[in-house]
């Protein structure tokens, strides 16, 4: 087992993070009951690690991802990135943080702007962050498209999302995420909408990117087999609580929490045909 908990190597740390959403107000009583999406969770991810977060719908796994890229702020607790607290970041501090942390969303049919060409989509982060000159930006975009397997990059420049397949769209989403060379990527179910033959190619791509750029990845999924394939360590989340954290192999071979055992039991496989 890798020593993931040696303090100096920790990139992302969540300390007793709670996230509550107010549900609809009751008409007469005026009280608004709260839904606890995350209930005081602790999590630390080491530099260069691929960390898996596994759970079923409504377990809080996507909320965790959204908190880490600061699309949401925690109700209580603190999130540290390189030992700096991030939950109160505003203005230029937040903008700098967003250049280091990027997200890949689940649905490649909805996460790309249909009005932007592929070049514009991947260029936008560079323009927002004011990196390079127009010429070097274009060069960077071509290079990034090549990296994600959309080559030659120029051929995709003037195409629009509707002209691409689901797998190609997700590659564009990955290109948009890595063009700023972030230190940390949150991938939220990046392949759950895609066919198996396409999914496995994207996993390979994410692995290559991680190796090349030395990125740290949080991989969110409900598929334990995918998490085991991709990740160094896996955390199992249930009802807003992290119930178990261990190395990927140990989680599958020696699950301790009853919920983990249940998740393993319901994974589709070929046990019927053995």
């Amino acid at each position, binding site marked *: 087992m890798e020593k993931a908990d040696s303090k100096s190597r920790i990139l992302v740390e969540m300390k007793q993070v709670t996230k509550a959403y107010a549900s609809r107000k009751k008409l007469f009583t005026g009280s608004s009951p709260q839904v606890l999406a995350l209930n005081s969770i602790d999590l630390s991810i080491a530099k260069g690690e691929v960390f898996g977060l596994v759970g*079923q*719908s409504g377990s809080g796994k996507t909320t965790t991802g959204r908190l880490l890229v600061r699309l949401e702020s925690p109700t209580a607790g603190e999130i540290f990135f390189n030992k700096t607290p991030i939950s109160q970041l505003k203005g230029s501090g937040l903008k700098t943080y967003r250049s280091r942390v990027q997200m890949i969303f689940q649905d490649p049919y909805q996460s790309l702007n249909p009005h932007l060409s592929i070049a514009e989509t991947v260029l936008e982060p560079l323009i927002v962050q004011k990196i390079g000159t127009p010429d070097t930006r274009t060069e960077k975009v071509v290079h990034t498209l090549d990296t994600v397997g959309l080559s030659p990059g120029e051929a995709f420049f003037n195409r629009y999302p509707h002209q691409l397949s*689901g797998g190609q769209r997700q590659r564009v989403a990955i290109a948009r995420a890595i063009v700023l060379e972030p230190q940390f990527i949150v991938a939220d179910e990046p392949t759950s909408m895609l*066919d*198996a*033959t*396409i*999914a*496995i*190619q994207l996993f*390979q791509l994410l692995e290559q990117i991680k190796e090349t750029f030395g990125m740290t990845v949080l991989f969110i999924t*409900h*598929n*334990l*087999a*995918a998490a*085991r*394939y991709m990740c160094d360590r896996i955390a199992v989340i249930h009802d807003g609580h992290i119930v178990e954290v261990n190395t990927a192999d140990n989680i*599958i071979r020696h699950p301790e929490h009853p919920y983990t055992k*249940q*998740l*393993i*039991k*319901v*994974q*589709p*496989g*070929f*046990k*019927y*045909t*053995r």
Partner: protein
Amino acid sequence: MSLLSVDHLSIGYQTKKGMLKAVDNIRFDLEKGQSLGFVGESGCGKTTIGMALMGLLPENAVILGGHIRFQGEDLASLTETQWQTVRGAKIAMIFQAAMNALNPVMPVNEQIKEAIITHQPDISKTDLADRMKELFDLVDIPARRMKDYPHEYSGGMKQRAIIAMALACDPALIIADEPTTALDVIVQDQILREIKKVQEATRTGLVFISHDIAVVASVCERICVMYAGQIVETGTRKEVFKSPRHPYTRTLLNSYLSLDNLNDIRVPDMKESPDQMIDTDECRFAGSCAYAKGCAGRSPDWIDISPTHKAFCCNPDMIRRGHGKS
């Protein structure tokens, strides 16, 4: 006589660029009480087959040839009025998006009653009430939730209600098109058990369509693997998954991540899918096939491996020999 017998069925879509052959010369049979799974990737034509069996093909679809014989009747030649006596009553469908398949402004029990009354207008009130209770029991929804609206149900309960609706008129054939795709693994497991239980209890024929090979493996006795509009391999679940012969089936199995095949994962080198606008006899998988040698220009043929197991390939020696353990 088979419950369902599909013979040389071809279906095309009229597009701006010409005719796109979505289903090409398909044949299969299904007996009463049996389950048959169709597995393949997006665009392989599996949903088009399901829609053809329900008489729900979109307007630009054309049945180019072949027959769909169901209880002796050729469905391919029915008019819309004739379809209305078949659809829902003899053949029913479990749709993919349980979230959208129910009417949001109508209580769930009213929607299911509607299906029964449409096909049995003379049914008495007590018979109807008995049937409703029976249906909700069958899919494990408590009777006190019958009058709820769809938004009061969880995703899994909605899918159960859809199953109850499909069973309402006691059909002889059920078509399930990706019934668990939008659900998470735990609910998926429950719904798959539900479908199997119900199918065994009612002895209904089941056509089960999914892109997820492990899901198909867990439900169906017989499997058809589809690629680019054609069936490329068919056999019992054990034959197809334990001893896959067609190179495409092997590619599919090798790229599927499950907890029990992790060491056999191979990342495929898939090219762009073939152009289905072109009418050709040549193998459609040749461009991505790892074993294609001298296949170019040749037409694949059905090769028997056992009485139930066969594959559609240009290379009979390789298919019969198998590739060793996959």
